C-alpha cells in the first residue's frame, strides 16, 4: 500500500467525503467532544492536520480509537465539515495497512462474557481489525 | 452523438430576464466564476417575454440547448411574469418531449440577482448535460448546419 502524503490525504478525503477547507476554525467540534481529554489529537486538529497532509501522525496516535463515534461534532459543526468522519476515515486507513490491526479476532472474542452485548463485540471487530 | 465529431462544440442560448438572471450572470462575471463559452446570453425584460417561437427558432438554427432564466417565483419584477412563463414553458417542454425531442435540451432555472454562483453552477451543469446529449439533430434545420 502506498504511503505517500498525497495518497494518504487524498484517500482520507475521498473515503470520508469531508472537505476540510470548509472549516472556519471555530473549535466547536472540540468544544463538544465528550472524550476530548483522552485524545492526543482533538477533532479540530484532525481537520487541520488532514488539510496539511499530516495523516501519518494521526494514524499513529491512539486518538483514532478513542473517538466515541457519537457524531456530536458532525451534528454541531456550523460549517458542515464533519470532523468525526475524518477520525473514522483515518482509523480505517490505518486498519488497511499491513499488520496494523489494533486487536486480533481472538483478542476481541476474549472480551465476551455474560453481559457484554453482542453488538459491542461486533462493533469491536469492525473497529479494531480488518 | 458527439462521437461523430470530436471537435463539436455545443451552441447554447440562455434567455435571461433583465432584472434577476441577467444581473446574476453579471455577478457571476464580476466574481470570475467560470462557465463554458458555449453559453451565449440574450437579454429579455422578463422570462414571460420568451416566445416559444424563439426557442424553436434557436433549435432550428442549430442550437443544442436552450435555457431560460428568470426571477424566482414570487420575485418577478413585473409581479407575475415568471408565473405565466412557468406554465407556458412547462407546456412547451412537455410538447417537445412528446415529440421525442430530448427533454434535457431545455431547462428553466430561477436565478436571482444575488445568485452569481448559482448562475455559473447552472450553466456548468447545463453545458455538461448538453455535451452528454451530443449534437441536436432532431430539431435542427439541415440548411443551417455548417459542414
Amino acid at each position, binding site marked *: 500500500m502506498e504511503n505517500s502524503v498525497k495518497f494518504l490525504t487524498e484517500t482520507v478525503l475521498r473515503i470520508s467525503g469531508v472537505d476540510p477547507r*470548509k472549516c472556519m*476554525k*471555530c*473549535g*466547536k*467540534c*472540540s*468544544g*463538544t*467532544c465528550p472524550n*476530548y481529554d483522552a485524545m492526543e489529537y*482533538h477533532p*479540530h*486538529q484532525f481537520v487541520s492536520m488532514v488539510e496539511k497532509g499530516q495523516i501519518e501522525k494521526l494514524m499513529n496516535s491512539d486518538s483514532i480509537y478513542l473517538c466515541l463515534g457519537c457524531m*456530536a461534532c458532525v451534528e*454541531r459543526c*456550523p*460549517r*458542515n465539515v464533519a470532523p468525526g468522519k475524518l477520525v473514522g476515515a483515518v482509523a480505517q486507513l490505518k486498519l488497511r495497512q499491513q499488520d496494523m490491526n489494533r486487536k486480533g479476532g481472538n483478542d476481541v472474542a476474549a472480551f465476551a462474557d455474560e453481559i457484554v452485548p453482542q453488538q459491542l463485540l461486533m462493533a469491536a471487530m469492525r473497529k479494531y481489525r480488518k | 452523438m458527439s462521437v461523430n465529431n470530436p471537435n463539436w462544440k455545443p451552441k447554447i*442560448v440562455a434567455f435571461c430576464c433583465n*432584472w*434577476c438572471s*441577467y*444581473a446574476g*450572470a*453579471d455577478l*457571476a*462575471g464580476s466574481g*470570475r466564476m*467560470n462557465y463554458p*463559452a458555449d453559453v*451565449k*446570453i*440574450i437579454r429579455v*425584460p*422578463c422570462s*414571460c*417575454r*420568451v*416566445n416559444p*417561437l424563439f426557442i424553436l*427558432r*434557436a433549435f432550428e*438554427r*442549430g442550437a443544442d440547448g436552450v435555457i431560460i432564466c428568470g*426571477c424566482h417565483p414570487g*420575485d418577478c*419584477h*413585473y*409581479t*407575475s*411574469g415568471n408565473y*405565466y412563463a412557468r406554465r*407556458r414553458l412547462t407546456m412547451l417542454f412537455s410538447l417537445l418531449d412528446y415529440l421525442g425531442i430530448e427533454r434535457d435540451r431545455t431547462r428553466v432555472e430561477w436565478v*436571482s*440577482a*444575488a445568485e452569481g454562483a448559482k448562475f*455559473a453552477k447552472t450553466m456548468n451543469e447545463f453545458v455538461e448535460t448538453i455535451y452528454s446529449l451530443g449534437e441536436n439533430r432532431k430539431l435542427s434545420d439541415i440548411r*443551417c448546419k*455548417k459542414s
Partner: protein
Amino acid sequence: MQKIGVFVCWCGSNIAGTVDVEAVAEAMKTVPGVVFSTHYQYMCSAAGQKLIADAIHEHHLDGIVVASCSPRMHENTFRKTAEAAGLNPYMVEIANIREQCSWIHKDKEEGTAKAIVLAKAAVAKLLHNKPLTAGTSAVTKRCLVIGGGIAGIQTALDVADAGYEVDIVEQRPTIGGRMAQLDKTFPTLDCSACILTPKMVEAAQNEKINIISYAKVEKVDGFVGNFRATIRKKARCVDETKCTGCSLYMNKCPSKKGKDEFNMEMNNRPAIYIPFAQAIPNVAVIDPEQCVKLKTGKCGLCQKVCTAGAIDYTQQDELMEREYGAIVVATGFKPIDPSPLNEYGYAENADVITSLELERLMNAAGPTKGTLLRPSDLKHPHEIVFIQCVGSRCDENTKRGKPYCSKICCMYTAKHAMLIRDKYPDTKVHVFYIDVRTPGKNFDEFYRRAVEQYGVDYIKGMVGKVAREGDKLMVRGSDLISNQQVEIAADLVVLATAIEPDPSARSIGTMLTASMDTNDFFTEAHAKLRPVESPTAGIFLSGVAQGPKDVPETVAQASAAAAKVIGLLAKDHLVTNPCVAGSDELLCNGCSQCEKVCPYGAITYVDKEVRGPGVREVRRVAQVNPAVCQGCGACTVTCPSGAMDLKGFTNQQIMAEVDAICL
C-alpha cells in the same frame, strides 16, 4: 442599408486580457451593415465617448454597438453619448463582453470568438432597432417610509427637511424600532434612548412628517413617481387625537398576562399599555388578545378612568389609500430564535439569554430596572459567559443558522462585557469567540479596552454544550490557543444571536417587486455604486433591511437613501421607459388574451376603424397605454397572431439575436 459603427472597449486589461479586442474590431468590419469598427482602451472615458461621437458624425452612423461591460453599467452613458451626437439613444446596443465573456473565460481564443459572436448578435439586433422616444410622467411629491426605526426616522427627517411630505408606516404601536431597546451604544457608550428619543420627537413635531403607527402597508401598485399604497391602520381602541398618554389605566387593567414585547417578553404588561415611556405617538394601545372587555364584553375599567374619553372599544381597522413618488424600505431586523441550537440550552434555561434580552436587563426601564439580575432567581450573576456567532456564519446545508456574519455582535458583546465589568467588578466575564471583527472607527481600540482595561477573558473557541447543574450553567467549550477543553460554571450565559430581516420584509419585497437575496435582505441596484437603491425604480433601501449594519452605518445609509429620494421628488416629470408594448391593429384579432395577462391593466380594447391594404372596417382591437405599460412582454407571447410586440425587444430583434448566436 443602415450604417452601423462598432466600438470595442478594452476596459484596460479587464476585457483586453482575455479578448483580442483588435481581432474583434477587425472581424466586425466584415459584418453586413457595419461601416466602421474600432477599439479603444476605455470607451466610457471622455476620450472614448468623443471617439464615438466623432465616428457618428464622420461616418453618418445611424446605429452603434458598444462591445464593453454589462449594459447595466454603461448603457445609459453610451445612450447619452449617442444622443449628444444627434443619434436616437435607442439606436445603441451593448455587447456584454466583460461580465459575460472576458471575466469568465481564461482562454483568449475562446474569449475572442465568443466576443465576436456577442458583438454580431448586437449588430443583428440593432439592424431591427427603431428610434424610440421616451414619454414623461408626473411625480407625486410624497415619500413613503416603511419602518419607523432609526433608519426610517433618519430618512424621513432628511426628506422632510428638503420640504417634501413623508409618511412613516410602523407596524408597532410606536416608532423607535430596535435602537429604542438598546441600553448603550458602541463604541462611545452613549445612552441609546438619549440619542434616539430627540430624533423621535423631531419626527413627531415635523409638519411634513406623518407618523402612521400600528399599521402596515397592504398593497402597492403603480411605478416610480406614481405609486399608490393601501395602508391598514389597525384598531388600537384608543383615539389617538384624544389620548394624553397619562398611563392612569395601567394599574386598573385586570389583565396582566400580556408579554411585554419591548422588554423581549421578559415581563408582563397590562392589556392596555404604552410600550415605553418615550413612545411616539405617546398613545396607549389595547392588545385585543388580552383585553377582557374585547374578549368577554365585561370590564371597561380603562374607559372609566380615562378622563380624556379616548377609549373606544368599537374602533375598527382603517384602510387608507395614499399616493407616493418614492418608497423607502426600512424594515429592520430581529434576532434569530436560538432554540433550535439547543446545545446552548436556550429553550430550557431562563439564564441562557440573548444579547438583546441582556440589553433590556441592563436598562433602567427594563424588567429589573437596570440592575443586572439573572432571570431564574433574580440573583446577581458572578460568572458570565458570552458566546459569539450563535447562528451566524453557518454553512447553509447545516440548517444551523445564517451563512452571513451578523456584523454587530463582536462589538456589542465587547460593550456588554465592558459595561458589566465596569458596573460589577466582582463579576468574571468570559467571551467565546471565533474571530473578533472590529473594522470601524475606534472599534478595535474599544475591543482592546475590554480586554486590557476591563480584563474580559476572551477565549478563542466555540461552546459545545451548556448544561444546567444545580444553580450553575456548565459551559463546555474549546480553548484553541491553549489546546484545551474548558468547562466554566456560569451563572448567566449570553448568546450573541445572529440577526435576520424582520419577518415582514419578504411580503413587502414581493409587494414592491423589489428583489431580495436568499436571506431576505433587499438587493441593492449595484453592490458598490448604488447601495441604497433597489433595482426597482423608485424603491430605496435604508438600514438593516439591506444587510447587517450598526447604528452609525444605518444613519449614514438612511441619509443617503433620503438624498436619492429628494433627487427623485425634486423632478416634476420623469422620463418613461419607451420600451413598451404596442399592438399592430391590422393583425390584432381582438381576442382579449393579452389583457388577461397584463399585470398593470395597461391594455384596453376599443372598436376602431382599421385601415390597411385592402382593409377598411371597424374592429375590436387592443390598445396599450404607454404610460402604464412597464414593458414586461407577457402580452406579446400570449398573442397568437404576433400583433402585440415589445419595442426595444421586438420579435424580430430577438430572433435576429438568436440567429446570430446560432449560425
